[in-house]
């Protein structure tokens, strides 16, 4: 089975430096980028779904990483997007660390929950080690980031 992380990362799916610094504004920024990239039909509805996911339980996993994710009717196709923040985003992490790496996992509504969570698990695995996180933060192109994500076993 092919995985999202195994696919090429379109340049529009990488935000090298997030403009915003709070969790909710980052979710809006990512949703808008998803709409501009043709992945989401309506940014407002997508950001609402992402905020509701955070309300269910925070998606920051510590060590400066967050994996926001949603299955939504407004998502046209499965996709992974990456956002980075040198200054850090206040995500309310349990370890108190600001989030510097955001891996957004989006699935259309027709995607089964188990498959969506499998993609989230792969995104998490891609950020597991300090070396992997550093490389994801320092890679200078979508192609390089995609190469790092592809290293995760499917």
């Amino acid at each position, binding site marked *: 089975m092919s995985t999202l992380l195994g696919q090429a990362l379109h340049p529009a799916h990488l935000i090298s430096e997030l403009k915003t610094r709070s969790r909710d504004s980052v979710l809006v920024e990512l949703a808008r980028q998803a709409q501009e990239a043709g992945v989401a*039909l*309506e940014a*407002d*509805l997508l950001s*609402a*779904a992402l905020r*509701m*996911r955070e*309300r*269910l*339980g*925070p*998606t920051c*996993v*510590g060590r400066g990483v967050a994996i926001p994710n*949603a*299955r*939504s*009717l*407004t998502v046209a196709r499965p996709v992974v997007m990456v956002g980075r923040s040198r200054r850090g985003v206040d995500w309310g992490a349990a370890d108190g660390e600001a989030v510097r790496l955001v891996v957004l996992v989006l699935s259309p*509504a*027709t995607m089964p*929950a*188990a498959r*969506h*969570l499998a993609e*989230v*698990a792969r995104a*998490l695995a891609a950020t597991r080690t300090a070396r992997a996180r550093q490389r994801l933060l320092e890679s200078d192109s979508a192609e390089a980031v995609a190469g790092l994500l592809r290293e995760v076993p499917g």
Partner: protein
Amino acid sequence: MSGCGDLIRLHDLDLLLEEASAGGARQRAAGLGFAVSGLAGVERARAQLFSRLERRWLVAYERAQRRYGRAVVTVRDRVCQGCFITLPTSAVPSSECLTVCESCGRILVWR
């Protein structure tokens, strides 16, 4: 706020609640390190959203949800993405962008 947007939000909330409630999916999420601590808050948000919707859409939503699990689907190239029937040319999106599929009864979102 449009009925269309609210119905899509309700649909997405139900997908999220399905993930949070289904045993296997919930265990998997917990195994990944995601706590499911805000279930009550999400259920409250759903109830608020539900109370805002027009009764005719609520009835159609609940009926289709019970029958198919997912009550709202998109239309692509005039094809209902729930039952994959080609919609008649007389089926046109309303001002709210919503209609009901005459074949399966799911609520159609025209995009």
